[in-house]
């Protein structure tokens, strides 16, 4: 069993948390990652900063700029990942970002670096199934999952292409839009997750626009996991390197809500 599959085999929904690597500085990121784990996150998404985060809303755009402004390099991201893996041997770590920083030194180089740092999977915003000729195969050859995104616009005809070569989990982007904005209607999420699950045995994780424990709990009724990003990133924007306390607190409340979501509904 891989670290990722184990994270989704705990008999309860998983909490997936996102922060941007190097925000506010590369040296501060390790402690913030630890706070996510201490708060109860099951899977960690570490954003690779990019100058042009086209799929992100204002909160994560600003995080990218803070990170790059602090001088974060790709080498820092892998150093952060390596340190995390040493401190947390069992918690899955996924890098999330945009294609260009991932392929700048070649897909093979990137896949090697991921494997070396103990990275479990990659989410790449702007490499759809149609362009997966290099990065996906390189990652899979090194045992690193290439986690695909499905969206409200992914119809039944397209879904098999999206699922082909996808591993780790399936990330359902619940709104057609950018990160950190509006939340999708619960009914549409329920329907979409059911549709996705009819096509795959992979865990389906739901993200985009999830900010509060209550929202996360609602979504956890349906998804195998819930992603929270912008709400955590907002705390880092507010508290900088002193964000560990507030981040741990928020993640604890999110984790309690997500982990207990189905238990409550089972009782009801």
């Amino acid at each position, binding site marked *: 069993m891989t670290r990722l599959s184990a994270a989704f085999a705990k008999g309860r929904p998983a909490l997936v948390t996102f922060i941007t690597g190097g925000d506010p500085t590369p040296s501060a990121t390790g402690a913030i990652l630890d706070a996510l784990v201490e708060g109860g996150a099951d899977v960690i998404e570490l954003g690779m900063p990019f*100058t042009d985060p086209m799929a992100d809303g204002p909160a994560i755009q600003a995080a990218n700029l803070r990170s790059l402004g602090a001088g974060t390099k790709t080498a820092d991201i892998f150093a952060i990942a390596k340190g995390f893996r040493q401190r947390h041997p069992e918690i899955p770590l996924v890098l999330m970002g945009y294609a*260009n920083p991932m392929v700048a030194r070649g897909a093979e180089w990137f896949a090697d670096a991921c494997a070396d740092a103990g990275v479990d999977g990659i989410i790449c915003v702007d*490499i*759809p199934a149609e362009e997966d000729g290099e990065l996906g195969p390189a990652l899979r050859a090194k045992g690193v999952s290439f986690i695909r*995104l499905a969206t*409200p*616009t*992914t119809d039944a005809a397209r879904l098999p292409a999206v699922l082909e070569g996808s591993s780790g989990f399936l990330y359902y982007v619940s709104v057609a*839009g*950018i990160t950190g904005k509006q939340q999708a209607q619960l009914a549409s999420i329920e329907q979409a997750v059911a549709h996705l699950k009819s096509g795959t045995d992979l865990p389906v994780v739901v993200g985009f626009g999830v900010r509060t424990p209550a929202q996360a709990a609602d979504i956890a009724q349906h998804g195998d996991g819930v992603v929270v990003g912008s709400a955590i990133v907002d705390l880092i924007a507010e508290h900088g390197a002193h964000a560990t306390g507030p981040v741990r607190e928020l993640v604890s409340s999110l984790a309690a809500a997500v982990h207990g979501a189905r238990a409550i509904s089972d009782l009801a």
Partner: protein
Amino acid sequence: MNATTPNSFRNQPDERGHFGQFGGRYVAETLMPLILDLEAEYKRAKADPAFQAEFDDLLEHYVGRPSPLYFAPRLTEELGGAQIWFKREELNHTGAHKINNCIGQILLAIRMGKTRIIAETGAGQHGVATATVCARFGIPCVIYMGALDVERQKPNVFRMKLLGAQVVPVESGARTLKDAMNEALRDWVANVHDTFYIIGTAAGPHPYPELVRDFQSVIGKEARAQMLGRTGKLPDLLIAAVGGGSNAIGLFHPFLDDASVQMLGVEAGGHGVDTDQHAASLTGGVPGILHGNKTYLLQDEDGQITEAHSISAGLDYPGIGPEHSWLHDIGRVKYLPINDDEAMQAFQDCCRLEGIIPALESAHALAALPKVAKQYGKDQIILVNVSGRGDKDIFTVADKLGTTI
């Protein structure tokens, strides 16, 4: 004529939108179904004589095509080499080649039932052209423009507003064209159901580079026929400025299989390609992925995009259309950087010698002339694409000359 043969330079891209290793569809999954719809609809439109007829009719009666082919006698004499001819795209309605593409794309948007238009703009020429066709067809539009460009292109901002467009200044990054494109993509991904994105240059995800090129190829098709009609021969050298590269690919593409015709794309060299203040992505960049396509980009070793600089807002972009990257790599087209000062000189020379105020973008193409004209005989022909008029640039030029208007 040049039918598309197996050895043709004119049968790109492949069915997946690749020009050699360049191009493609590097977009978020949310956009993929729409991109595929657009591709299918464009294929149907291309095969529909009614679509072509409406496009041609609007180009003739609304845009004012064909644009003239003009022999520039005084510039020719001053340079003392080849005959210099201009393709006068600056005489089009709205003052640049951009309108050709906008007419084509708005007709596609209407075919697809889209009810809202978005666009990015750098110099404002594409924004004005988009606002124009939206007014013509009564469709609301939002134009994203870098806040710095809003400052340096005030006349075009006002024009867009007069035409009924909403202009959104973009404050992120260097506040120029790249940032405007990021913001337009964010809008699009959130409004895919009703919104058509009119991309202004031959770049972005497939099928945009192909369809923009096809719509702009009216430039080269006309020029080829006009030149044969007037001189009985083809030009020896074509020159065009390249930012994203739509006016250049529009001129070049119909000539690509004419082996005797050489081609020169002019990149914005800013303060010089040996500085970090330029926009010459072929000369100073390496292949990468941005804004939906794989192409040459200005970037650092980590793949972070570096800021471009050019005196010309329309060339101030760290990438280039994927077909140019391919033409560069296979050597069919040569590319040359021209810096801000050289463009300024050419701008003034063209005003003084020919009575034509060119856009600063086009002035880059004109600035290549002193470097190449004498390499050609007096019976040879260099054709320059004067892609836009320079009225919008007079404030920038005055500022550079130390004059207050």
